């Protein structure tokens, strides 16, 4: 074996070597993030990751072996271009023994993958028998483009199941069985750190199970194309310790907080955030997150539960009135207040959530303001805009029914944020 | 056939054989029918899936079907296959008269089947209130049997074309133009006969099942259609009396045979649809 041709053509070789050398460069550490499947936080995702590693190692080893042979053959049997008249090589047609052994070897390699695969299929399908009694059950329903979460075990007198939206709170350390339903098109429920996705399909009763080993704050996202705003259909899962979880449930079962009476008269001075925040019109699709939140999301969520600010009661009262006048009540439930609609998310405790607009924006006054003033810029095609702010006329055209101006938005923000 | 393959030495365009000895048209039709198997397979499974998982409020098919009529039309379609086979056999022997007679018979039976289906659809829609959109059963039933009906209709159209084709004069070059116009006239008369025939038969079926049937009322109500139908039949008879040498002979047996393959296939599909969609409901 000789290498001279390899050395004689430095430019071309260098180019090829560079191409190969570039590959690892691009494989750098991009495996950590809020939706990373490598940083698992529960047994289902862990099992899925372990299986992935099995496939990865088997494939990598085969790739290295086969790739080396291919690379070796390419270099070794390269013809010398200066000698085109060489006799052709032996016209051999193959070797059955080699073929059969390679087929056998491939089957062996696949068996290595197949066994844990089959095991994983049964494991990840449903809560293990031993844990069934301990499992907590919730229902998740996909809407274009947000998620409704329902707690069938938590009954509220006169109002049925406890409902929330876009932030699923679960007990940590316990298996949770999520029944997956959809009201319109196909969606898919995916919390990468906790479990792989399962689709929400109309006329089909799907479910999945997951478990968060420790309390924490997890990102989730719809993973099946579901229309115009599929990309911005997100949600969160918050896992709490047993005691925190029970406290949260108790609070959620309460009707909406009454910060001020509907027809309040004299009120405190407006010295608080709702009157004082500044709002600037945002670009379409502008990011809705603060860095502080990103760094400590779980802490931010806990903070959001606390009633730390005094409400501007006059504004809150105005907002509550506007909530009726602008027909918001027709689609949103605010238990204990006027809202009775069920086509939109339940807002009874919206002030205690960290996100709005289907997990898209951080729940700050500015973001809520933006969402209320121009919902279609935030989430194109959403039903609050098409069907609320806009209505079809007789000719089938969309025409505006109402708008929300700056002052009205401030009042609504104050009201909604008072709903802890 | 296979022995001829050995003589395939020079040029396919001139040698009587193909690589396999199977005529191209026949191979084409067989492969197409394989594709059509998958087509009807998907369609029938769709019907079965929805029939096995009926949504709430589905109609009871037994209250809609009239199994006697469908059994009759199934029998008719089967018989048409027999005539089709006889037509293929006749043309292979070069018996033109018999070929034409059997082609006409196949067309006639095919049309009876189609008339039954038209009547059935109208009856289901008007008397039983089952439409394409009223229920899932309606959707799959009409789509499945309608698609099959389209296949039968295409077969009938093909048969009619073939029948008219059999009148093409032997020495066509000189007389091509008149023959072409004649063939169009022939086709139009045929089309009139088919449309009017189906109309009067279906109308008759409706009247005979409705209360207060009177032959006079029927004849009066559809006099024009009846007269037109009889006139077009007469026209067909006259056209069928054309004499003279024609170029339709044994060498066209492959065309008739290919058409026959299609026709038999469509029949076989119905032999599957009939029990699956109709008969199984009664068990």
């Amino acid at each position, binding site marked *: 074996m000789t290498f001279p041709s390899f050395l004689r053509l430095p430019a071309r070789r260098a180019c090829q070597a560079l191409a190969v050398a570039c590959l690892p460069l691009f494989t750098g550490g991009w495996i950590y993030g809020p939706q990373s499947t490598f940083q698992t936080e529960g047994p289902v995702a862990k099992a899925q990751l372990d299986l992935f590693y099995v496939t990865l190692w088997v494939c990598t080893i085969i790739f290295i072996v*086969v790739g080396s042979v*291919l690379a070796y053959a390419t270099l070794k049997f390269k013809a010398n271009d200066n000698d085109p008249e060489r006799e052709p090589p032996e016209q051999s047609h193959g070797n059955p023994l080699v073929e059969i052994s390679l087929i056998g070897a*491939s089957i062996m390699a696949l068996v290595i993958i197949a066994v844990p695969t089959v095991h994983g299929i049964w494991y990840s399908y449903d809560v293990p028998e031993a844990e069934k009694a301990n499992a907590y059950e919730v229902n998740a329903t996909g809407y274009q483009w947000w998620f409704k979460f329902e707690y069938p075990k938590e009954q509220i007198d006169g109002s049925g199941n406890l409902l929330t939206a876009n932030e699923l709170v679960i007990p940590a350390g316990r298996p949770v069985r999520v029944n997956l339903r959809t009201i319109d098109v196909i969606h898919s429920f995916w919390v990468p750190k906790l479990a792989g996705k399962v689709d929400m399909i*109309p*006329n089909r009763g799907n479910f999945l199970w997951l478990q968060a080993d420790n309390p924490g704050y997890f990102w989730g996202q719809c993973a099946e194309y579901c229309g115009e705003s599929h990309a911005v259909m997100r949600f969160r899962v918050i896992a709490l310790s047993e005691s925190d979880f029970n406290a949260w449930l108790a609070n959620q079962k309460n009707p909406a907080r009454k910060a001020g009476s509907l027809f309040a008269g004299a009120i405190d001075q407006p010295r608080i955030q709702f009157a004082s925040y500044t709002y600037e019109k945002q670009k379409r699709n502008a990011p809705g997150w603060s860095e502080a939140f990103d760094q400590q999301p779980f802490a931010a969520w806990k903070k959001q539960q606390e009633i730390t600010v005094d409400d501007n009661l006059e504004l809150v009262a105005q907002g509550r009135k506007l909530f009726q006048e602008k027909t918001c009540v027709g689609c949103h439930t605010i238990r204990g207040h006027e809202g009775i609609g069920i086509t939109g998310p339940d807002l009874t405790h919206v002030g205690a959530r960290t996100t709005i607009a289907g997990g898209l924006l951080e729940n700050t006054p500015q973001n809520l303001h933006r969402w209320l003033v121009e919902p279609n810029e935030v989430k194109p095609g959403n039903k609050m805009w098409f069907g609320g702010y806009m209505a079809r006329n007789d000719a089938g055209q969309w025409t505006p029914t109402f708008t929300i101006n700056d002052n009205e938005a401030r009042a609504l923000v104050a009201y909604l944020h008072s709903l802890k | 056939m296979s022995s001829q393959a050995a003589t395939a030495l020079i040029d396919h*365009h001139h040698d009587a054989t193909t690589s396999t000895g199977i005529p191209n048209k026949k191979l084409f039709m067989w492969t*197409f029918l394989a594709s059509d198997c998958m*087509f009807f397979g998907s369609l029938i499974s769709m019907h079965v899936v929805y029939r096995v998982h009926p949504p709430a409020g589905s109609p009871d098919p037994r209250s809609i079907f009239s199994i006697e009529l469908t059994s009759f039309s199934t029998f008719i379609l089967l018989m048409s296959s027999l005539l089709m086979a006889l037509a293929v056999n006749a043309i292979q022997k070069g018996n033109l008269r018999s070929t034409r007679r059997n082609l006409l018979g196949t067309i006639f039976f095919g049309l009876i089947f189609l008339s039954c289906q038209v009547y059935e659809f109208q009856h289901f829609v008007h008397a039983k209130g089952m439409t394409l959109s009223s229920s899932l059963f309606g959707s799959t039933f009409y789509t499945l049997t309608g698609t099959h009906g389209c296949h039968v209709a295409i077969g009938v159209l093909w048969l009619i074309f073939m029948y008219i084709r059999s009148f093409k004069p032997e020495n066509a070059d000189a007389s091509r133009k008149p023959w072409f116009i004649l063939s169009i006239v022939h086709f139009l008369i045929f089309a009139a006969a088919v449309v009017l025939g189906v109309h009067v038969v279906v109308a008759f079926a409706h009247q005979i099942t409705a209360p207060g049937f009177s032959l006079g009322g029927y004849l009066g109500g559809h006099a024009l259609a009846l007269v037109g139908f009889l006139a077009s039949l007469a026209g067909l008879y006259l056209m069928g009396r054309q004499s003279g040498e024609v170029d339709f002979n044994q060498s066209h*047996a492959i065309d008739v045979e290919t058409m026959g393959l299609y026709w038999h296939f469509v029949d076989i599909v119905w032999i599957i649809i009939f029990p699956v969609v109709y008969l199984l409901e009664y068990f």
Partner: protein
Amino acid sequence: MDVTAKTDFIGKDSPAASERPAIFTRPTTKTGIVSWLTTVDHKRIGLLYGVSALIFFLVGGAEALLIRLQLAVPNNTLLSSHAYNEMFTMHATTMIFLAIMPLSAAFFNYIMPLQIGARDVAFPRLNGFAYWLFLAGAIILNVGWFIKSGVPDVGWFGYAPLTSKAFSNTFATDISTDLWVMGLQVLGVSSVIGSLNFIVTIINLRAPGMTMMRLPVFTWMTLFTAFMIVLSFPAITIALVGLMMDRQFGANFFEVSNGGLPILWQHLFWVFGHPEVYILILPAMGIISEVLPCFSRKPLFGYPIVVFSGAVIGTLGFGVWSHHMFTTGMGTMATAAFALATMAIAVPTGVKIFNWIGTIWGGQLQMRTPMMFALGFVWTFMIGGFSGVMHAAAPADAQQQDSYFVVAHFHYVLIGGSLFALLAGIHYWFPLIFGRKVSEFWGKLSFWIIFIGFNVTFFPMHFLGLNGMPRRTFTYDGNMGWNSANLIATIGAIILGIGIAVYFVTMVYTYYKGQRVGRDPWNARTLEWSIQNPPPEYNFAVIPTVHARDAFWYEKHHQAEIAEEQAAHAKAEEAHGGIHMPSQSWFPFLTAMAILTGSLFFADHNFLGAICAAVGIVAFAYLWAWEGPGGYHLHLDKDGNVIDPKKGGHSTH
């Protein structure tokens, strides 16, 4: 039977044009636009397919670049969400149905008859019809760019119930989804017709001595692909019929409120969709199996195994569709069965890789551009195959499904696989088709730019997917750890775009100014290289007799014997009346245009217009049948030139 079989081939020679009514004067011109509209020559139809496919490939590529530009940075506003959804729908639909499939069809048309020693396909007019129907489908799919409804935005998979009127119509008379339905329907009919033709051609029109086990591997893969098309397209046809009935006539197939099951759409779609994946890759494997032996100067290693593994892939390909649906809650048993079946399909695929390596082992590798693309194919296809095996592990797939990992996987098999092979094929057969050779420097330059750009684009996507980025999202937030990978992927896409541009500019330049080459410039092994380039319309002056698997290689090494044999055959053929050629016809084109008109009317809910067009379809089909296959004869002089009947002594009889 003797007589019947004969009529398939012996059309009566046309009488002189003047004796016939104008409407039946069959066009005879060999130049100008009419000659292209009425052509029945498989080589011209192949070129039409190829050029259209490349144009749509560039359109699909532009859509891809827009997608990548939108995702270059988080919270980008280049495209609105609606426009983005249109882009990815059209990108996928265009690349699958309007670029890769027709490009494969171009090679089937052009190369396959030459490889089996035939003068044309079995049904030349039907072949033209398949092309014009393809063009009609392509127009229907793309007409949305010019109307208010816009192009389809339901995804190329069109999952119900998103395609229903309630969810896909942005306004009451939105017909974009109807156009999608009709477009796919017409394309499906075109593919099935084309494939039936190829099947009959391969089985029935082989040259003497060309037994099935001597067929070139590309022809084998054509046959398997054609069978897969014929058997898998009906499933999507039925799914589309159901959807069409829902949308046009208010049926309930996928109407959830009346009990429709959207999951049924998925089953029907993937019963088609998975074989479709192999429809895209098998022709590519065929091309690679031609290029590697040619440039290794060695026969394909393990020919029977390569052929049978193709058959196994084709068969198993019908039994694994539900691995696209692992996350639909099929239950443990079904999931396990489909997972294992999917792993099983990796065996015949792996076997092909082993055989390709076996082919170059011990050869003399000529590093020409097609060989570079072929070797690049083996590398990238291997990576794509491995990520495919990872998907087969169903629980792991629950994390990968509908994430960018899947995007990376199928671009590795579709670009790194299908496209690389097709680009290799263009390079490889360019000298045969146009008689000019592409510059090695520019060819290799384009290969390296494409290869690097491709890997830079799609390798990071593996990480994006595993890092939780879902597909089909028009935007993402900057806090997810996806920024740098997305930016690099976009840069890679631009590099890839530049590479493709270099490739095509080189091709266009070569077409006009490239170096002319003589017969058989690569020292190749299969029959298509035995004829002069560009090939004459009659392909083979004398139909070859095949004595061995690599037929042309054998001819080159047994020249005396072959020359004697051919002289004898030439005489015999002349005695039979000369070379029979099929006549051109207007009706394939006219029938396809009537179908185009009807489909557009139908999509627009204009049933009267559709019925008028249907009458046109029947009328044209009748005329088509009426004019008959036709045909005329060519006679060659000693040098292989066609003797002009007007000048020469011979005339068609």
